[in-house]
């Protein structure tokens, strides 16, 4: 086995101990992610894990791969630069609901519509954990948080519908309480060519007492077997469906046809012509 590839998930674990609270949903993702790396036989030397700021953005520290922990909200911008500079790399971006959909929300649509070749995993706990419990873009209206002592006045965004609408070509939802399913979804997302998004419902036991493992367990259900992953309006409808009181995990949508950003620029490069320095200067010779 080549250096940097490991047989077992736990061998991908770095020596840095996770900084998360006991009972944090992010542990579930960490284990599932490492197992998926082993399943895929990923080489850590060719892998770059990029994150922003927040509890979940510490994720890359805990894996043996190359990692970059940037500034709040900008993980996707940095990740896109990494991938474009070296398309051979496996690039996965991580963040939370605040990092991804509040401060960084302006970048998500563009990575989706560019169909940027990478995987983006958001650990959604509907709260700001690292800064101790403020309202996030997915907080349920009316929920009391440290910045909304009388209840959250904002309507939440729907991350799945959001990325589906803007053109992500692989969209899935996972639940920290179901690491086995998550492991498979991660593998599928990373194998997908183009922009893959996984929304991981990852409860925060410390600052969000309303959305708990137990409450989610009640709500979570696999997407029905007859769910058509090539039907975007259907996927959006499922993402928006709140009438049943259910949340669905699984692959909402997958589009293998739309060219990725790298595909498109590789095609265009062929039309740019060969590099000839003197020919360029000729344009400027009087």
């Amino acid at each position, binding site marked *: 086995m080549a*250096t*940097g590839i490991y047989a077992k998930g736990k061998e991908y674990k770095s020596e*840095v101990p996770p900084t998360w609270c006991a009972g944090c949903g992010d542990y579930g993702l960490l284990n599932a992610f490492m197992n998926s790396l082993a399943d895929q036989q990923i080489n*850590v*030397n*060719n*892998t*770059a894990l*990029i994150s922003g700021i927040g509890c979940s953005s510490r994720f*890359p*520290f805990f894996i*043996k*791969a*190359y*990692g*970059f*922990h*940037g*500034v709040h909200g*900008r993980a*996707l*911008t*940095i*990740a*896109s*630069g*990494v*991938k*474009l*500079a*070296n398309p*051979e*790399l496996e690039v996965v971006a991580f963040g939370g609901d605040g990092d991804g959909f509040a401060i960084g929300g*302006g*970048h998500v*649509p*563009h990575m989706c519509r560019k169909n940027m070749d990478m995987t983006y995993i958001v650990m959604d706990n509907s709260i700001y954990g690292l800064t101790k419990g403020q309202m996030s873009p997915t907080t349920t209206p009316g929920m009391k948080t440290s910045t909304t002592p009388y209840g959250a006045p904002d309507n939440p965004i729907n991350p799945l519908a959001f990325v589906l609408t803007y053109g992500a070509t692989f969209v899935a939802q996972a639940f920290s309480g179901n690491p086995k399913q998550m492991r498979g979804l991660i593998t599928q997302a990373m194998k997908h060519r183009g922009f893959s998004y996984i929304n991981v419902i990852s409860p925060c036991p410390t600052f969000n007492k309303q959305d708990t493992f137990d409450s989610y367990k009640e709500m979570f259900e696999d997407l029905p077997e007859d769910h058509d992953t090539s039907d975007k309006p259907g996927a959006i409808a499922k993402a928006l469906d709140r009438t049943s009181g259910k949340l669905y995990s699984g692959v909402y949508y997958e589009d293998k046809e739309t060219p990725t950003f790298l595909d498109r*620029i590789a095609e*265009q*490069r062929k039309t*740019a*012509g*060969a*590099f*000839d*320095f003197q020919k*360029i*200067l000729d344009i*400027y*010779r*009087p």
Partner: protein
Amino acid sequence: MGHKSDLCIRIGGEGGEGIISSGDILAQAAAKAGLEVLTFKTFPAEIRGGYAMYQIRMSSEKILSEGDGFQVLVVFNKEALDNNINKLKAGNVLIWDGPEGGDINELPEVPEGVIVYNLPMSKLAKVDLGVYRSKNMVCMGALSELFNIPVDRLKEIINNRFGKKGQDIVDLNYKALQLGIDYVKENHQGISNPYNVVAQEQNKDVIIMSGNDAVGLGALMAGCNFFACYPITPATEIAYWVAKHLVKKGGTVVQTEDEISSIGAVVGASFAGAKAMTGTSGPGLSLMTEILGLGVMVEAPLVICDVQRGGPSTGLPTKHEQSDLFLACYGGHGDFPRIVLSAENVADCVDLTIHAFNLAEHYQTPVILLTDGSLGFRTETFEAPDINKVKVVNRKMYNPDTDGEFLRYKFTEDNISPTAIPGMEGCAHMQTGLEHNEKGSPNYGPVFHTKNTEKRFNKIANAEDFFESSHSDIEEGATVGVVTWGSTQGSVREAVQQAREAGVKVSAFYPKLVWPFPMKAFNEFLKTVDKILVPEVNYQGQLAEIIKTKEIGKEIIKYNIYGGLPFEPQEIAKKIKEVQ
């Protein structure tokens, strides 16, 4: 000035009526005739309407700046006349659109000694030719006849420019040229003028290009292979250039959703091993400052070119100002240094972009190159650079045989840590915007924050020794030393010439590196003068204020203008005389 070896023609009119293209053609014709050329353009921020101006200075000698106004004024409309009439001096030539067809019905009184030619270019184009938009070509024809600009050269350029659109279009332009020529021949034989474009023998391989294009060219020559951009006036032409040419050399150019994303992508690309750059203007640089600090923290080699414009806020998008020096040198939260360069002229835009990449790679840190709107837009002739003679510096990479254990932020004697990029075996590591230990793991203890802060400052402290970072022009016996930065350096060089011709002794210091300021060279310079004069196109005297912090023990005289236009050399020459 005003002798025939140094001629400056200013064309003014409404934006969108062909001022820019006629200026381009005239500049190219002069360059083809072997002359040195430097152009200067101002135009409104809107696509159509408003006053646009294109000035072409041509000379048998190297041109240092936009100069002291024009000798020939061509006005396409009344607004252009009104804007410039008070600048006309005896001996100047005025060419105006009239007396019929245009919007100048009657020419107001002009100063005595101004040589006036009427040229009803609107009427000739609209009525005689039937194509109003050819007005500028009618004008070109008249100019070629009046100042002996080789008409063959003009035709050659027209053919090159419009040939693709078909012979009809080429012929139409030729016809318009001829109308202008004929009008002058028939009506103005009796009025002579002293200006004559004398073709020169040109034995150098010369190119004529803009400052923005030159930044692109420099990037390509330096080995830039990643460029991220967000459109912004007056910097967007850099993106046009690299989008067209960098990809031929295998580079990647991406337009992002905002400047934050551009600089984020640049940091990411640098992390992945690319030579990465973005081009922007002040508003964009403001947005980038948080990630600029990240770039310094993770020690990412990268280049930002800020083509400055008037500010604050949206300010004066198409006008000249050098007011981002504080932002470039100090912008961002926290306590961190960066390298800042400033370009004097178009050739400098090539050279300093190359130096910017080399400095970034060597010191593993962001480098900001400051140019400005007038430099970005202006075109200039200069000797074609040779890509084979460029010295390209690459970041110091980790070598397992000599460097021991890989530590991304290892403390070393020169404060530069051998680095590794994703893909390298056995070097997987974390980079973080958090303060960190040598390995890159978060560490907020006093030891690492102290040592790393010092490392970040100390590693670039001697950047002035890395390249020819300044130029001292010392005249024995001079009491005044002029110091400035950016394109104002060109105006100062010309002012210094003027002052010396008038018998005034003056020295000058031209820093290419403005942060960290090249103090070794500057201290040597200061030994030769009693006081320094710092002309800058900003209100605060930003360089002067930075120099003040160096406690140089000499009087510092600020000289500031802030009207959206560059200095005229004569203004600075006058000031030199005043303060000496």
